[in-house]
């Protein structure tokens, strides 16, 4: 080999290794996390009395109108509290599961972070979340949280987040479309399947159901599991009970309805389902809400129907996936923590709370008794316009349940089961790989058991 050829070869190998490095390198190991704090700690000196306490709030509500409403509330709080400056930073739900742990490891975590039950369970073992038992007790006495909303955030001897709003699925349809097809009401899965078949026409799919390996599909699969009586996914000892006849029935019912869904639904998230309904391509969808887009498209409020999710014949009452959202206090600085408490007290005052909930009209549902009566909530123009639907959603939300948080026994593996979208993966075995529901339930059980064992 000539010298030139050797040098050329060496350069090519170096370039290749560099490219490999660019593609393959993963984030570095982080130092061991401290144990969860048992009580408020002041690990940093409090700022001087004259310096304002700065709080950073991360939330995942990206639409402009939500950010704008948040900012209005923040400005109002900052104006009323000269010693505190709250600022918001918008994240998104797809990234936050990786971004937040990285931020914690790097020491850049926000002071306040919006959360869901499984996301809290991911961060709490990292020692990044501060217990808020005292504030939640105080807020419960002042505003009366609905009974089930604190439970998903209460484990390891503490409450780890302050519940802020609820989001639940309902079945959305157009009354005129139902009337034209001669459909009156749907309560059971048999009626649901018959309706979907009847509503499927040349340019209309009877039912829009997702099959993506994504959180929306997890949620909808769980809607079916709840309405089959399979809402408990853990036994009391923490072992998984996914593989049972009720789950099999849920997967079977899902697949029977799925045949009336658009062929691109394996790539759907929430937005595509909503768009399908708005375009009148889907006659029915399971969604948190469709009101904003339906209204923006010039829909008639009187024609928009919402009902509880149908259930199996042997189940007496409809249920729904309920995703209570909450706020975690992340800061360990005592002055910041007191400022964060002040901000959360401000947010839960009924008038402010109503304004917060209507950041996305008819999506964020109240979790406190006095918040549910808030005039700012009920007088919001969109809520006034769609009052019937909002009342229907609130009615449905009374039976909301979140996977892995249906009892007081909460197991950390639910964070991984949720993070890896295992319900959606099991469903894909049925609707894409064409396995039987029983085989898919067995496969899903094995997948979950591996996670539990790890």
């Amino acid at each position, binding site marked *: 080999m*000539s010298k*030139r*050829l050797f040098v*050329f*070869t060496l350069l*090519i*190998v170096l*370039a*290749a*290794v*560099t*490219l*490999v*490095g*660019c*593609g*393959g*390198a*993963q*984030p*570095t*190991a*982080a*130092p*061991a*996390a401290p144990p969860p704090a048992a009580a408020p700690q002041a690990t940093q000196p409090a700022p001087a009395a004259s310096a304002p306490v700065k709080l950073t709030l991360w939330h995942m509500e990206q639409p402009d109108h939500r950010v704008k409403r948040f900012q209005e509330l923040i400005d109002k709080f900052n104006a009323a509290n000269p010693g505190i400056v709250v600022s918001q930073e918008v994240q998104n739900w797809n990234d936050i*599961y*990786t971004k937040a*742990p*990285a931020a*914690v*490891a790097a020491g850049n975590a926000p002071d306040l972070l919006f959360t869901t039950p499984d996301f809290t369970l*991911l961060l709490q*073992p*990292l020692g*990044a979340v501060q217990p808020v038992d005292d504030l939640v007790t105080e807020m419960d006495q002042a505003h009366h949280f609905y009974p089930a909303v604190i439970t998903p955030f209460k484990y390891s001897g503490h409450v780890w987040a302050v519940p802020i709003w609820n989001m639940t699925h309902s079945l959305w349809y157009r009354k005129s479309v139902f009337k034209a097809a001669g459909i009156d009401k749907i309560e059971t899965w048999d009626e649901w399947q018959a309706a979907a078949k009847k509503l499927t026409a040349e340019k209309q799919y009877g039912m829009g159901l997702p*099959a*993506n*390996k*994504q959180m929306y599909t997890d949620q909808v699969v769980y809607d079916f599991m709840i309405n089959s009586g399979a809402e408990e996914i853990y036994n009391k000892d923490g072992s998984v009970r996914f593989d049972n006849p009720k789950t099999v029935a849920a997967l079977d019912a899902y697949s029977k309805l799925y045949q009336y869904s*658009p*062929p*691109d*639904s*394996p*790539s759907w998230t929430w937005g*595509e389902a909503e768009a*399908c309904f708005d*375009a009148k*391509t889907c006659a029915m969808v399971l969604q948190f809400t469709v009101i904003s887009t339906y209204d923006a498209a010039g829909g008639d409020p009187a024609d928009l129907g919402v009902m509880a999710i149908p259930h199996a014949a042997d189940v007496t009452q409809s249920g729904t996936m309920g995703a209570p959202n909450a706020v975690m206090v992340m800061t360990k600085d005592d002055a910041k923590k007191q400022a964060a408490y002040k901000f959360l007290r401000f947010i839960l005052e009924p008038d402010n709370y109503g304004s917060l909930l209507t950041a996305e009209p008819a999506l964020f549902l109240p979790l406190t008794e006095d918040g549910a009566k808030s005039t700012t909530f009920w007088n919001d123009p969109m809520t006034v316009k769609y009052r019937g639907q909002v009342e229907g959603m609130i009615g449905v939300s009374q039976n909301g349940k979140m996977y892995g948080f249906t009892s007081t026994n909460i197991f950390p593996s639910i*964070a*991984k089961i949720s*993070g*890896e*979208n295992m319900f959606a993966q099991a469903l*894909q*075995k049925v609707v*894409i*790989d064409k396995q039987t529901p029983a085989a898919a339930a067995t496969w899903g059980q094995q997948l979950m058991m591996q996670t539990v064992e*790890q």
Partner: protein
Amino acid sequence: MSVSVLPARRPARWRLGSRQTNEAILGLVLVAPLMLWLASCILYPLVSAVNLSFQDVGIIGTGGSFVGLDNYAFILKSGGFWAALGRSVIWTVANGALQTVAAFVAALILKQHFRGQSIARVWVIVSWIVPTVVVAIIWRWILGTSGGIVNYLLLTLGVIPSPIGFFGTSNTAFASTILINSWRWFPFMTVIVLAGMQSIPEEFYEAASVDGASSWQKFANVTLPGLQPVLFVMGLIGTLWSVNVFDTIFLMTGGGPASASTTLPVFIYVTAFKGYQLSRAAAASVIVGLILVAFVLAFLRWMPSPTDEEAYR
């Protein structure tokens, strides 16, 4: 012989204050920032990834202990890894073939003299300039079943009875993603191939014409050998780029449906950040890195290099 010469010459060349020494120092100073950048941005993460692969770190931000080769054993026994490797091979070969053919066709057309040639040369590169996330959104619209233009045209023309869910089945999702990625990247190859074509002296084509060569013979005997240096580099670098493509696949399909488009980078991401198995993902990264280094060495060993005089004959 040279050993006896070097000690005598070195003091003269490296004398402090001499022109050669000053130039050498200047060169080092100029190259130092780049070397430091490379060391911090590439070498450090690489070393960290290897270190991480020998631990049992799950979630980023947590600690881990040394577990030796356990993660490597787990990954090598994992069906998901081998399936992803198989898909990566299909992905790389299919993208390479499609992009090469498309690039050659486009470059041959753009090499011709016609009105609007300059505009066409700029226009062809647009799809490469557009950010990946925009490409993903555009193609999801184009191929969607609710108002997507492709399904609309196929339905209107009576080609299909009902809309096709391009991202709805395992085969169509992966094939669609390959086509979209090739569409995005072939302009880059076109520009490289076109530049290579323009470096081939026109006299070669004139001589071939005098000898009565057909268009195909000119392409096979003049153009292709003349492009050999370009093809060598593109074959190597393009393959490495292609294997490492993550954004297009993840944005289009997320690796689905039912893992049908989960190639190695997606597998690694999902393992690390959805499955919270950071160390196992690091082990998979190291294995992929070794596979690619082996590919590079094999490529250099078996493919004719631009310095191989035989290739020019």
